[in-house]
């Protein structure tokens, strides 16, 4: 893993153009579509050809980009990329209409073709098309261009375009994940703030591991992360600027500040502050730094998360005797419990970016589970369960959840944490690739 350089985070410029074949410009009916709410019983077979390149160098970049697209679509659980060795038609001309019968012959429902061109000025241009094999028509045709070093992002943008066209929802592949890298024995664990692409590529450390860092979360509007750090005597909430590499405490507080999250406008951070032996929820403007107290209860009030419209906050409180979920208005008024009685202990609520659901950790009996419920507490569904699953984070389209899974320590073995993903339907549970043990994932908004 390389250490952060500010150049790494320089914003890439992307150009986008639409490709249209006259005969296929307006599809009247598309046979190939995915209904996300039911989940897919069988992933859709899709043929992603090796993208074309005019010379050896272009060809190598082209096939690497196709590999990124294949990986993204496969991991989503919605698609089954077919083995290129099974292809009957060898696509050699990007402009030609495919032989649909050949693709039907190998059960492909979708076909992705593309070509990559490295331009003399260092720009990389990639054209791609998505074909509906049964409808015999082009569904998407786009051209992306950017600097050559951003070739992986072009792959993610193509995967996003395919996902969006086939599901009707925004993709989430051109995103990053911030998390805590963990290493060393449990009794002397080393924690480093880390960031990587959604598919595990380009990992880098943001802190050196000299002190504990926890609970990083992305800004919804800027290239910044808020997190909690032990680098001062009093553990405190910080903001890390990804473009400059600078970190700054959010204000001077007499006690511990923790559990931070940005507000949806990105201008404030909501967090917990321990003051005079009482943990309450506060929100502070990042410019004036003036904190506003939202809860007054003598219980523990923590893990606040704003609704995407900014009107309400869900949080965790043990004011009723055990940790449960509560919702309040943005000014702290109207606090009411939403988690059902007698069901277990509910913590770490996170409001979905779509606003319709709240994800949480539920502890019942000997297991920890990740679940979702509506903001009024109804419709609880448990998605995953293990010895220890905790800390959900949403993909920007609200369809996928990442969380931390920790195995039990037995005889000096185990006890480590890894990051997992689960679809909102409860299907497609997978381990996320990280450079080592990892915890506290937080998904970025869509890159822009």
């Amino acid at each position, binding site marked *: 893993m390389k250490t952060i350089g500010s150049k790494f985070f320089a914003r890439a410029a992307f150009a986008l153009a639409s490709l249209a074949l006259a005969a296929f410009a307006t599809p009247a009916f598309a046979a190939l579509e995915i209904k996300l709410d039911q989940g897919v019983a069988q992933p859709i077979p899709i043929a992603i050809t090796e993208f074309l390149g005019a010379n050896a160098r272009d060809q190598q970049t082209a096939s690497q980009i196709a590999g990124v697209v294949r990986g993204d679509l496969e991991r989503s659980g919605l698609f089954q990329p077919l083995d290129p060795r099974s292809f009957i038609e060898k696509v050699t001309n990007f402009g030609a209409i495919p032989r649909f019968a050949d693709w039907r012959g190998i059960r492909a429902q979708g076909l992705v073709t593309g070509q990559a061109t490295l331009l003399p000025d260092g720009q990389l241009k990639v054209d791609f098309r998505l074909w509906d094999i049964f409808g015999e028509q082009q569904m998407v045709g786009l051209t992306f261009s950017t600097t050559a070093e951003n070739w992986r992002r072009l792959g993610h943008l193509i995967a996003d375009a395919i996902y969006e066209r086939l599901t009707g929802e925004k993709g989430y592949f051109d995103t990053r994940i911030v998390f805590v890298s963990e290493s060393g024995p*449990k009794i002397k664990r080393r924690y480093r703030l880390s960031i990587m692409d959604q598919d595990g590529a380009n990992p880098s450390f943001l802190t050196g591991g000299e002190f504990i860092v*926890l609970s990083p979360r992305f800004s919804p509007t800027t290239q910044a992360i808020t997190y909690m750090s032990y680098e001062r*005597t009093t553990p405190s909430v910080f903001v890390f600027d990804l473009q400059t590499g600078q970190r700054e405490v959010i204000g001077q507080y007499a006690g511990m500040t923790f559990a931070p999250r940005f507000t949806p406008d990105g201008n404030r951070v909501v967090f917990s502050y*321990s003051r005079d032996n009482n943990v309450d929820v506060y929100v502070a403007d990042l410019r004036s730094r003036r904190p506003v107290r939202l809860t007054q209860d003598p219980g*523990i009030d923590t*893990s606040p998360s704003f609704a995407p419209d900014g009107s309400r906050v869900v949080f965790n409180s043990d004011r009723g005797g055990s940790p449960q979920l509560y919702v309040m208005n943005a000014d702290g008024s109207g606090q009411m419990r939403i988690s059902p009685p007698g069901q277990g202990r509910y913590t770490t609520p996170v409001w979905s970016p779509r606003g319709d659901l709240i994800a949480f*950790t539920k502890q019942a009996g000997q297991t920890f589970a990740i679940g979702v419920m509506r903001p009024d507490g109804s419709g609880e569904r448990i998605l995953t369960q293990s010895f220890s699953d905790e800390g959900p984070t949403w993909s920007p389209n609200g369809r996928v959840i990442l969380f931390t899974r920790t195995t039990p320590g*037995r005889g000096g073995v185990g006890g480590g944490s890894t990051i997992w993903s689960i679809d909102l339907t409860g299907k497609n549970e997978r381990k996320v690739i990280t450079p080592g043990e990892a*915890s506290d994932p937080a998904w970025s908004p869509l890159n822009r």
Partner: protein
Amino acid sequence: MLRGATTFKLALVVVAASLLAACSSTKEEAPAPVVTAPTSSIKPGSADDFRVNVGDTVFFDTDAHSIRSDAQTVLQKQAAWLKQYPAAKLMLEGHCDERGTREYNLALGDRRAYAVKEFLVSLGVDAARLQTKSYGKERPVCSESDDSCWQQNRRGFSVIAAGAGS
């Protein structure tokens, strides 16, 4: 755990010395063995004195922060020691077991540290000599996932932050 290992090593030295003594009784020229008492090297008022002779750890019940009677005994000794060494200051750490989520445990550890502080203050210790810090579940002393380890990890740990004799 470290403490256990140290005590064990000291005990070995004593046993070895005793064996030497037993052997030496048959040999006139052997020097008389010098057996050092394990605690004699610990200077009164030092961090070691606090750790070994007073006790730096108190334990809590699951998801609780009330001071148990076994903890009261330890904290009474801590308060008496602090009275004897008025320059000493403590950092009171609050820790949790792994059976809770990260952020909730930070708050619970905070409560435990405060509970220790309030108990010491009730015994006459100046609050200005006591700082608190929660580590949640991030700094366990025992890494097995069983009841015994979880109990060891649900603790208040008092560390000399300043003013200890060396």
